[in-house]
């Protein structure tokens, strides 16, 4: 049980670290657009399958 004297202050440090990370990510604009990146990653997944094979032939009009 003595370990609590170390672990609990340690958890305080962790919370402090989390708060700092939160502040950094808010300032960095990570929360400004919550929908776009989620949708974008779905779209990017499909692209190589269809895109790669046909790309060169379509450059000519």
């Amino acid at each position, binding site marked *: *049980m003595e370990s*609590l*004297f170390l672990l*609990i*202050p340690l*958890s*305080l440090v962790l*919370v402090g670290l*989390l*708060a700092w990370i*939160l*502040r950094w990510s*808010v*300032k960095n604009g990570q*929360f*400004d*657009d*919550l*929908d*776009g990146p989620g*949708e*974008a990653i*779905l*779209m*990017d997944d*499909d*692209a190589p399958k*269809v*895109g*790669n094979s*046909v*790309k060169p032939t*379509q*450059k000519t*009009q």
Partner: protein
Amino acid sequence: MSKSLNSICYHCGSSLLPNEAYSTDLNGVSRSFCCAGCMAIAQTIHGEGLEVFYARRAQSSDKPSAYLASDQIPAKLLPYDDPSLLGRFTRPVGDEGDLETTLRLEKIRCAACVWLCEQHLRRSPGVKDVQINYVTQKVKIIFSPKQVSLARLLFEIERIGYEAWPFEPSLSVERSKKEKRQLLTRLGVALLGMMQVMMYAWPSYVGANDITVEYDLLLGWTSWALTVPVMLYSAGPIFQAAWRSVQSFKQTHMLGMDVPIALALALAFTAGTINLVTGSGQSYFDSITMFVAFILAARYVELLARQDAQGGAEALAKQLPATCERVLNYPQAQQIELVPVVNCMPGEILRVSPGEVVPADGMLIACESSVDESLLTGESKPIDKKIGDRIYAGTHNILNPLIMRIDAVGQSTRIAGIASLLDQALLAKPLMVSLAEKWAGYFVGFLLLCAFLSSAIWLYIDPSKAWTVLVAVLVASCPCALSLAVPTAMAAAQGAVTRLGLLIVRGHVMEGLVKASDLVLDKTGTLTMGQPELKEIVNLRSGYRREEALALATALEGGQRHPLALSLLRAAELENLSLPVLSEPVINQLGKGLSSGAYRLGSSSWIGAHQDLQTGQYGQVHLADEQGLIASFIFLDTPRVGLQDFLSAVRARNITVHLVSGDDPATVAWWAQKVGIESYQGGCTPEDKYDYIERLQSAGRFVWAIGDGVNDAPLLARADISIAVGAGAPLASAGADAILTASSLTPLAKILLLADKTQMVIKENLMWALIYNLVAIPAAMMGLVNPWIAGVGMSLSSLAVTLNAWRLRKV
């Protein structure tokens, strides 16, 4: 893809006429297009390997301009590279001379559109970084001016079927961004504190009585250390607002909601700290952090909805073109140069081509034309302008290229005046005290009374316990269910309403719909589509078939932009008529009509035909040759789809309907009679409409308004709740509380029912929170509340409230 898709345009989805289709081979499949512009866009998209867009998009795209077929930056975009405009819209960034610009994207309809724009821009040479915000539809681009220009970027966006215009970041935008980020950080700190403090409080929840004193102290002081930042940083604005409210009590005689909240927080924190120091009693830190976290969460949701609302200034910029054609050395040389509108001065001469928006107020000095003023005045028919007539910024020129002298630009134009009236109206808008606020006010008052009363009673029985009971009552009452009751119901209802086609901008719409006692409707563009349709052909000369007359008239009108001409073209297209070839060129005689050889098509006075004076008609034109009248075409404005459903739903709720329009009184009266509206007023200016609403409001009515034009903007802003029709003017949307994205009015009838249901759910939720508190508070007053019972009860009541609100998502 099936073959049937080939009968519609692959890009814009409009139906194809068999002889007019363009087709090309994309990825080995032959695709058909309605125009060269659509084909060019699809080729660009496929050429970059981005064709997954077509599979993913939610809606088909809009029809683009024809000039996209060539890879040339159109002249109207070139002035953006003029140093005066470039300096306004770009900012230098980094050491390598790169520029940063913010553009606002138009015609974005789904996530696939955002993705396409981002991918396409990234593939352009010279573009260093692209960031698109899906929510605000703004894109931030960092580019190297040596390799690519601003005009090129704008054109690249047009090339894939969208539009963009440079956006000047204003102070208010920066401020609201800062406000949002700050509140989010405060909320995050409160949530972190809440989680951690609850974890430390867990031993006392599970009732472990065997905790020794030193561990109890350790847990207590760590909780205290985490509660301090939550109190000082997260709850700081609450204390400030409470203090301001107390200071201004003498003037307002009202205490804000923040006062009891701040009082409860301060009391609980002081009591907890005293208990911690003396080593007896509860610490309450878990309740404090949780309370703060939930209050901030509710405020954050509210802030998000509020910030979606668009300011009048931004909408005004969207309404007017950025560039115009200035005529130099008028009237001798008449050279034309394209310049940014901001560089124009009163007294200068402009040319406005047909189909373009007039950029400034002025006077017509040459080339008579007719303009569509419907967005500005509500007048449904195009107005013929003679030399010396006033021309207003924001109106559409539809007939001939006109030459005008500028009287006013920018802030002194008529349209800017309406925009400032709109901002004024938003300030004067009566604040609706929402149901939840009212209940919360009563609830907090009741709570304070209970707390002080019980502590006073305990002072007689056992003075040592009075302080503990006071705090126990304040804290044990569950604030979570109360603070979640309204936001959860609103969020669920908003999701459902958006799917029906109504975009809520300001939060009180659902509640306001239930309260509405009067509905004020605009005519042109709202009640009707503002677009004439051919209703019937009369006075047909014997020997002529109906189709022949229509085909002949359509051939005469070919290439005209007048609304009546367009509706004739549509009618002919619908019946698949092949048009006769006219032997002689068509001559346009302004104010009279068109002629080609012996054939004449035009107004009744010019043709000499007898006009049936049926009011309410959009108009009529007559076709004649040397032997006299061949046929008369009668046009009617079309009512908006779903109008009858909507009106009967409104009448069923005993809402009085008013029709207030800028169109001429006779037409307004005719329409009011046709759809069965008893109170109506025609020929209204924007100021008249504003007064109309004000009169209703001062008579104690709760006014709901629907409109679409610039002239409706002040009315929409002033009404208690307002809905703008989506396809209308951006300025109208700026003043409205919600925007109807569906083209039919039927969803509004459903939304009315949903509003009732939302109100029910909010009431149930509040009732539940109240019942919970009615049980918990007396228990706390008697000193019976056990921490873990309170914890379980709190979670269960919050869960019940959330699940109840969830029912609204199913429509």
